[in-house]
């Protein structure tokens, strides 16, 4: 499981917009984004390197929670909370099996 948190100096509604408006997602998440923002809605992300990933929206709670399931593998959950400094965004991604930087370290240790 991956668990990341970031505190953003922006109000929750602004962070929500950056997470859910395809045009804005195209500025930080991918290069070309389609998103049907409702449970069961589809999402497509394309990157300039030719990579393309598809997902299905599983949960939408405006300005609070957004979750989607990658069609290949894994679930992603975004949660927004008010904090003094602005908004805390929590990302949780669960993927059964994943290659990571640690893989390389581990295999370097074994093959050294």
């Amino acid at each position, binding site marked *: *499981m991956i668990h990341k948190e970031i505190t953003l100096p922006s109000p929750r509604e602004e962070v929500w917009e950056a997470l859910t408006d395809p045009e*804005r997602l195209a500025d*930080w998440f991918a290069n070309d984004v389609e998103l049907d923002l409702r449970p069961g809605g589809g999402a497509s992300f394309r990157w300039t390197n030719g990579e393309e990933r598809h997902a299905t929206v599983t949960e939408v709670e405006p300005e609070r929670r957004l979750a989607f399931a990658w069609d290949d593998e894994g679930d992603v959950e975004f949660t927004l909370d008010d904090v003094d400094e602005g908004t805390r*965004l929590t990302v949780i991604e669960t993927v059964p*099996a994943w290659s990571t930087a*640690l*893989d390389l370290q*581990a295999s370097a*240790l*074994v093959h050294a």
Partner: protein
Amino acid sequence: MTDALGQVFSALADPSRRHVLGYLSERGSATATELTGELPITRQAVSKHLAALAHAGLVESERRGRETRFHLTPTGEEWDERLEALARHLRERRS
């Protein structure tokens, strides 16, 4: 040294545990039974090693049907990059 880091080092200090990490790195995931076939040790010893690796946060387990599979804990570096890009995006919008 923090306790967490100490646990990582002690987990890595054992050759069998390093072998387990290498196998998981190559195959993606494995059951304790598969790992027992790979190593000259008992299944009970494999389970102990997996518990030590999980305790150090290096591996995670997951139930798939009737079996428990182990995989390396992902580090999520791509999310660090994405969240940094999001912070930049919000900063640019504000200025």
